[in-house]
């Protein structure tokens, strides 16, 4: 079970009627949800369900076809730069330049977030993720586990209030993955960082997420705390529920979850 969420009453992310159309393909249809401060919200679904598209929309990398996004009380895309100063992103599918050292990469990105940094601050950040020894190593020489943790160090450079994590533990061995999860939970508790989390590892989702949103073919099909939706769907586990939705789509007669999230907004 995740640590008890440090949520407040004001949602930090509000998504209302979000749709994204790529030509004739509907990547997302009428998606609405909120996320509260200090909450870890999981985005679940098969490949192509719309998870990454949702994250890219929330980061302003792509523009919505319809709907409204408010992050930290500001509208996307109008106030994108102000929002980006206060959020960050880490993904298994992005990389930092391999021909720069770890220090060089983090120094460059700290400045991009408007922060002058020094080696001590970077060292402290690397220590937080248990990789201080790689500070002067070329990024290209790091192992997958070290690279993932370096990406997370990059993501914490600006002390983000919201962190978007796209399969952050993909390709990690179970030991490192467990350490990363533990570190993220600790940071969430200490800093009250909101995290939007995608993963195909259902055990990880159950461990990490306070609430999950199931997407299928770009539509929200279920939402709620992991244990609650498993119970509601009469599934044996979250994994079984995932497989059921993946193979059968939206098979449940009840409408998508309308339970009010912890910070109050529907």
């Amino acid at each position, binding site marked *: 079970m995740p640590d008890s969420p440090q949520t407040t009453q004001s949602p930090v992310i509000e998504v209302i009627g979000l749709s994204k159309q790529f030509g004739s393909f509907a990547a997302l249809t009428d998606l609405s949800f909120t996320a509260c401060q200090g909450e870890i919200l999981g985005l679940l679904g098969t490949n192509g369900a719309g998870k990454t*598209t949702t994250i890219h929309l929330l980061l302003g990398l792509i523009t919505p076809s319809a709907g409204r996004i408010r992050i930290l009380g500001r509208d996307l895309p109008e106030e994108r730069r102000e929002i980006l100063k206060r959020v960050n992103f880490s993904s298994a*599918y992005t990389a930092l*330049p391999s021909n720069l050292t770890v220090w*060089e990469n983090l120094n460059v990105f700290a400045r991009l*977030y*408007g922060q002058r940094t020094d080696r001590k601050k970077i060292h402290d950040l690397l220590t937080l993720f248990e990789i201080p020894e790689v500070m002067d190593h070329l990024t290209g020489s790091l192992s997958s586990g070290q690279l993932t943790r370096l990406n997370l160090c990059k993501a914490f450079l600006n002390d983000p209030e919201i962190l978007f994590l796209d399969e952050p533990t993909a390709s990690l061995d179970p030991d490192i993955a467990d350490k990363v999860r533990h570190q993220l939970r600790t940071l969430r508790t200490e800093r009250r960082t909101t995290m939007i989390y995608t993963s195909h590892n259902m055990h990880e989702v159950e461990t990490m997420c306070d609430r999950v949103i199931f997407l299928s073919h770009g539509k929200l099909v279920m939402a709620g705390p992991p244990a609650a939706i498993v119970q509601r769907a009469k599934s044996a586990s979250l994994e079984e529920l995932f497989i059921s939705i993946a193979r059968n789509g939206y098979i449940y007669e009840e409408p998508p979850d309308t339970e009010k999230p912890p910070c109050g907004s529907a």
Partner: protein
Amino acid sequence: MWLRINAIILRYFYLHRRSIARTMEIFFWPVMNLLVWGYVTRYLESIAAPRLVAFLVGNVIFWDVLYRSQQGITLTITEEFWVRNIINIFITPIRMTELIAAICIVGIGKSLITTAFLGILAALFYDYHLLALGPAILPFFGNLLLFGWAVGLCTLALIFRYGRAAEALIWGIPFLIQPLSAVFYPVAVLPGWLQKIAWLLPSTHVFEGMRLAQQTGHTDMTMLFTALGLNLVYLLLGALYFGWMLGKVRERGYLTRLHLE
């Protein structure tokens, strides 16, 4: 703002400091180009045209300014696609204008280093003195930088739109411009209808202006100002086209797909 521009400059400083391949881009290819054209010129000069060195060597050096400034914009951004870093940059608060400004500053630095190095080699090998052009060397240089940036913005817009398939344009587009720019021959040798097109390019005014300066010792200010005026128009059009295309790219999701290509 300056901190973010400085970050991008620092990123490319780190990159070039450690990469022999990228240092070659500044020194090796321009030097090879100069040596080949320099010796071809020497040979032609010995058999026919005594003033060829003055025309050709200088123009070869200055052509490189345009070529490298266009590549400065396109290759630096494309590099971020190659290393899957583009999304990391695009989710920082950096403005597109800041990113382009940083890339242009890096481009100025690289062009100055290349031009100075080629200028020294030209003096040593061919007794050609770039500084003999006088103070006009700066507006010639500046105009070619500006045109390179305008062409670079358009090229970059096409790369954003068409992805890796369009990368060949980085090297191809300059050579579409070169035959019309009067780099190696006067614009007068072109057919009449083509001359009209050629005079629409700022680079033609620069290279014709340089040719005139080398022949007469006189700098035609009209040509320089015409080149500047055309550059401002092309830069504005290039920026508008790039901005419009970036909007399309965000709308259609090309940026995130390009990242995964």
